């Protein structure tokens, strides 16, 4: 008897639950824009020899947004050029240790003509192997030593991602403007929160360009930054985002690889501008847009150069024009009206070369404008100590004298809440 009653009750619950899930939301969502806001032009196909092989060394696997970005890119190029499985060897979870050197040697032994590594700490180990094998090309993302070592077979690459950050910043600034207009916040309360990994130039350059993008449309915007001291720390990033929201930040962005900040924003209903790819799935009601580096053009470029027997640039900086800087789809439910157009206008200016992110007219450091006397700070390499002028023609020349970013000053309007990292 009991069983029958139980079954009946269970059946009732299931029917009710099924009906409830159908009833749900009433307001229609607009969702994402149909296309990504900024995409790379399609890459050209060319013939690659059958004996060509490329090895790709990744710090983590595809569960890290950072490494996944590289894996996705090499696979895209692999498909485009019709490379076989054995021509593209991807090694994941390779630590920034002797393991990297060992893996690189192994890839060379397997016949790779190019060995690529994706993490900053891989550089010295890759460099060691590059010296052992002058016949193989070694390419390293985010590194800083190629222009110092001057080897024919060791190269650095990065992208002008600060331009992408700037564009994402515009979307953030317009959102702040919308909040001010709706009376949700006062103009002086337009405070952005930013979760950064480390206080390296790469992060500083990114957060500064993001802030300048936002302030270009919302003049009253200021920014508070918390660092986590890790590239991937879900709970640390959550806590940092949580703390920033407590500090009355009304919009959050981040430069760290976990979904910590986006999920915290969704929980607290605070708009979020993301990085490294769309996090719409983690925040349907708060995600605005994301900027990212597209590495496919670089992989395409190095394979082409090796196929043609041409040298690879010592330092290669991808730009909007090369398709290396991309933006995701825009979330129309969160983004302010006119965002799409404002971004398209700025892209046109970048392409025309009339817009510079670090235009010295737009920011001050300690109340002063940067001028030709400015020297890069600690953490940038020795080559800059010889008097390379990095501020000229009215703007800071980021990623021109080497591919890795070196903009590392704290501009007025940005407050670091913790700097121990």
């Amino acid at each position, binding site marked *: 008897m009991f069983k029958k009653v139980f079954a009946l009750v269970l059946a009732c619950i299931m029917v009710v639950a099924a009906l409830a899930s159908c009833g749900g939301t009433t307001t229609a969502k607009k969702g994402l824009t149909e296309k990504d806001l900024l995409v790379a032009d399609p890459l050209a196909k060319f013939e690659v020899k059958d004996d060509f092989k490329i090895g790709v060394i990744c710090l983590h*696997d*595809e569960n890290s947004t950072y490494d996944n970005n590289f894996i996705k890119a090499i696979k895209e190029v692999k498909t485009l050029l019709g490379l076989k*499985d*054995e021509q*593209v*060897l*991807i*090694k*994941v*979870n390779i*630590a*920034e*240790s*002797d393991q990297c050197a*060992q893996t690189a*040697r*192994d890839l060379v*032994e397997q016949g790779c003509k190019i060995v690529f590594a994706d993490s*900053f*700490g891989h*550089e*010295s*180990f890759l460099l*060691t192997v590059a010296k052992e094998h002058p016949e193989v090309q070694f390419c390293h993302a985010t590194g*800083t030593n190629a222009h110092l070592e001057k080897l024919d077979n060791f190269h650095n690459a990065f992208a002008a991602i600060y331009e992408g950050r700037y564009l994402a910043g515009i979307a953030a600034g317009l959102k702040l403007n919308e909040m001010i207009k709706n009376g949700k916040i006062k103009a002086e309360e337009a405070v952005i929160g930013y979760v950064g990994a*480390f206080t*390296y130039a790469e992060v500083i350059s990114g957060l500064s360009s993001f802030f300048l993008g936002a302030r270009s449309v919302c003049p009253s915007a200021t920014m508070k930054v918390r660092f986590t001291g890790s590239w991937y720390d879900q709970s640390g990033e959550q806590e940092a985002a949580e703390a920033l929201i407590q500090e009355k930040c009304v919009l959050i962005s981040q430069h760290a690889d976990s979904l910590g900040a986006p999920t915290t924003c969704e929980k607290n209903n605070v708009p979020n501008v993301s990085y490294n790819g769309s996090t719409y799935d983690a925040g349907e009601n708060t995600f605005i847009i994301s900027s990212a580096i597209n590495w496919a053009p670089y992989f395409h470029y190095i394979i082409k150069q090796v196929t043609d027997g041409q040298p690879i640039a010592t330092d290669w900086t991808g730009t909007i024009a090369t398709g290396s800087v991309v933006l995701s789809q825009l979330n129309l439910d969160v983004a302010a009206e006119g965002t799409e157009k404002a971004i398209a206008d700025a892209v046109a200016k970048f392409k025309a070369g009339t817009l510079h992110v670090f235009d010295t007219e737009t920011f001050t450091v300690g109340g002063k404008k940067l001028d030709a006397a400015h020297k890069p700070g*600690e*953490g940038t390499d020795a080559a800059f100590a010889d008097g390379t002028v990095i501020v000229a023609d009215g703007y800071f020349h980021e990623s021109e004298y080497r591919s890795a970013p070196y903009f590392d000053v704290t501009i007025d309007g940005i407050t670091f809440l913790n700097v121990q990292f």
Partner: protein
Amino acid sequence: MPNKTEALKKGPKPERDPLVSITRRTDIPLWLGILIRAGAILIALVLCGFATKLVTGNDPISVYIKMFEGAFGTANKTWFTFHELAILLGISLAVTPAFRMKFWNIGAEGQVLIGGLAAAVCMVAFSGSSISDGLLIVIMLISSIFAGVIWGVLPAACKAIWKTNETLFTLLMNYIAMYLIDFFIEKADPSGSHTVDSNTLVRGWLPEIAGQKYLLDILLVALLTVIMFVYLNYSKHGYEISVVGESENTARYVGINVKKVIIRTMAVSGAICGIIGFLVVSGVSHSIDKNFVKGRGFTAIMVSWLAKFNPFMMVAAAFLLVFLERGSDAITTAFDMNASFSDILTGIILFFIIGCEFFINYKLRFRSKAKKEAE
């Protein structure tokens, strides 16, 4: 519900032999033990082949070939595999005396880390000094041993004197070692990489033997294996360790100073771990990062137990684990799989290997057979 009432009427069920009865056995012949283990590995490999076929569509034979190539495909790979084997074996040897004593030391990871750190600190500190390379290496070795001993003795002394829990203590010491390395990296190389590499650690490299940087480590661990075998089986210390492991009260009764044995044994464990850390940093990698032990401090526990604390059996157990790791890693790359797939394969094989120990330690008697025996 007629069945139930009928059953109730009949009263309690008559006593019956269980379908399978399990009895412990201690007298298994060596050949049978080996046969059972070989069978387990065979079944595991077949299952791995199925799993790969199912997921990738590649034929199982090609998978095994790739696996073998991953470990022994080239001379460089073979050297590397044997070196990995040496390091894992070395750490396994280090943890064994403590486990024989039933001292649950899970801090080998930290003891190796701190040994490596001590070596690296010396490499940085003496990088500009005029002392000879030979002397520097001796200083590094002594520092590494000393650091390892501290990391081993601290939990042992607290256990011996205040009866603290050695498992928690040794575990936490791992983290301290890890963060000390983090601190060192930040000081020695402020560029923001997570490693101090050969650009900074320029001196104090162990010499290469016959042009092979891996060879010296391998030979030293081979020597260590023999020494540990003798130490455990033919020395007074080894005997004391066994007695303390069997029963502390017995040990006390026969006049063994239990506290002293605990502390001394952990000092030995720590010292060997320190040496291994030194070998990795100074012998091969010439760099240090906080993950350079790669969890082998824990894997070593499994090696030690699988081999029943016998140093020569440990060579086989460590070889198996290293081969699996290298092989499944190669499969992952060759067939463009997620890295987790190699973990799945390793998991399948370990399941069978650990599982087969059950059939070695216990005898299964089935009901029909039992009846026959009764007749």
